[in-house]
């Protein structure tokens, strides 16, 4: 059961407002960080949608994200299409790939699902890596940003771009929360809880899971389109499986199955990366240690743990 509780709304709103303030008051560097957080948060909540609520721990969301980025880059830098068309192309490419992977892997579970998504993600990575028309290993530059001058916005400005990314994060969150509260989301959570029973009730579970995977991929693809605009450059590294791993780390760090947690997790991970990265080259080690500690502490994540402690009904409940 997914509930958009007041705590969740407040947490997401406060995180986004805090980041907006940081971007507005901080320098250029702060704005880059805020944009990075917003993009990673969109990717992370889309992964939480399938992993936390559908039980599908995907290791191909990096590839989906990268396909979104490439979809946008090819449309603008190579074909010279207007940015709204490019955004549609990016989201469509990601959604189609997600639908395909979701349909093919929906009947596998556990480690087999993880490996299958890894295989498809890496396949996409290798194909883009080897594609000479897409620039191969060198990637592609010259990606243009959204033209929002009709709103009086100039996205060449790093502050305005960061704020637009935050707004899109809020939009993506609202979209996924609405889907989760609707019958579609409740059914997905039902499949996660007991797939056999849902099938016995007459549901074609694999089709539902594939659709959920496609919806999640659409949001990841949008994150990818933003990432391409952020650096105005795409490279095959965006599709590599470690990107999916990093997104999964964010989800776990924040709190899997809470939707609000990954937003917090993205902020924590990027800040950790930059703060620790400022005094040591070995920040990955700290990310690893934090990840191990999070899982050993019960795997609820920072936000999930807080929510668990704050929940009124948790006092008398024995731990499972």
């Amino acid at each position, binding site marked *: 059961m997914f509930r958009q509780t007041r705590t969740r709304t407040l947490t997401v709103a406060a995180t986004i407002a805090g980041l907006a303030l940081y971007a507005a008051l901080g320098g250029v560097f702060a704005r880059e960080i805020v944009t990075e957080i917003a993009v990673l948060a969109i990717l992370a909540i889309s992964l939480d949608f399938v992993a936390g609520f559908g039980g599908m721990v995907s290791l191909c969301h990096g590839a989906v994200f990268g396909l979104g980025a490439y979809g946008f880059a090819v449309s603008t830098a190579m074909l010279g299409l207007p940015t709204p068309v490019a955004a549609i192309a990016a989201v469509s490419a990601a959604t189609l790939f997600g639908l395909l992977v979701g349909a093919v892997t929906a009947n596998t579970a556990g480690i087999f699902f993880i490996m299958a998504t890894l*295989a498809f993600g890496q396949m996409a990575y*290798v194909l883009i890596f080897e594609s000479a028309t897409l620039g191969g290993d060198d990637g592609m530059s010259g990606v243009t940003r959204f033209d929002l001058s009709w709103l009086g916005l100039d996205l060449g400005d790093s502050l305005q771009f960061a704020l637009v990314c935050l707004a899109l994060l809020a939009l993506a969150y609202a979209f996924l929360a609405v889907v989760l509260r609707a019958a579609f989301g409740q059914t997905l959570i039902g499949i996660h809880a007991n797939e056999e029973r849902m099938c016995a009730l007459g549901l074609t579970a694999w089709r539902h899971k594939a659709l959920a995977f496609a919806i999640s991929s659409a949001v990841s693809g949008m994150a990818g389109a933003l990432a391409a605009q952020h650096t105005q450059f795409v490279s095959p590294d965006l599709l590599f499986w470690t990107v999916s791993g990093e997104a999964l780390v964010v989800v776990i760090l924040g709190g899997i199955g809470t939707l609000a947690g990954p937003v917090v997790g993205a902020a924590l991970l990027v800040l950790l990366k930059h703060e620790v990265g400022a005094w040591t080259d070995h920040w990955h080690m700290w990310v690893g240690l934090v990840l*191990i500690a999070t899982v050993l502490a019960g795997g609820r994540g920072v936000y999930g743990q807080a929510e668990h402690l704050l929940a009124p009904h948790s006092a008398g409940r024995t731990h499972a």
Partner: protein
Amino acid sequence: MSGGIDFWTTQVLNGLQLSMLLFLLSIGLTVIFGLLHFVNLAHGALYMLGAYVGVSAASALGSFWAALAAGPAAVTLIGIALYLALIRRMRRAGPMNQVLVTFGLIFVIVDVVRIVWGDVALGLEQPAMLSGPVEFLGVSYPAYRVFVIATGLAVMAGLSLLLNRTQIGAMIRAGVENDAMAACLGIDVERLFFIVFCVGCALAGLAGVIAAPVFSATPDMGTAILIPTLIVVVIGGLGSLNGAILGSMIVGFIQTFGAVVTPGLASVMVYLLLAAVLIARPEGLLPARG
């Protein structure tokens, strides 16, 4: 591309060499996987540790053979520490938590290696007696690579005898088949798990030392070999010796011949094969459970 018979013989030997390295890694991973139900993504990092310890041991003791003993020994000790501290308590935690904890371990081990040994690739001198080329199957082939193939075949034969002909082998097979039932029959399954885990770590360390003279020791070697190893394990079937043999042969040969015939698309073929196996035969080509 020269199409002579010598060329293809050389490619077969190259494929065999890669297959043997993959086998040494995947057999440990697959038995740990099949017996302990534990997904150890850090297995590749242990392989890297083996290579680095081997490089240091060789320069300290001045002998490749000392390195060949020190690498597996050190990796086994590190594996024991990891087992006691982390892995034992993650056994029943489900695949996702295991993936996450061992993913975190990769980060930690890679950075520890970068701190201790630095970021540069470190080479390991081949032993003098294996440095030249030898005439093998009518082609001139580096003696060291023949040694790699021979080591892999020897380990394969040894493990095959151990698993199929000894009592402990029968206990391991029983544990893979049904660990609860094996425990009911009086087998100390926990001790068995521990032994298997240690052997798996030792083989990862051995593979690391053996690979170092061919590929050099680099901080990303563990992550690079991890994915092909996992593919071998899944294609072959979790917990199966024959599966690991078949899987490493398939992956090793596809990668070697793919690189010659369709450069660039070799790894796509491997991923396609993995996807096909997962969809058509999720239990693997030669599953351990009957």
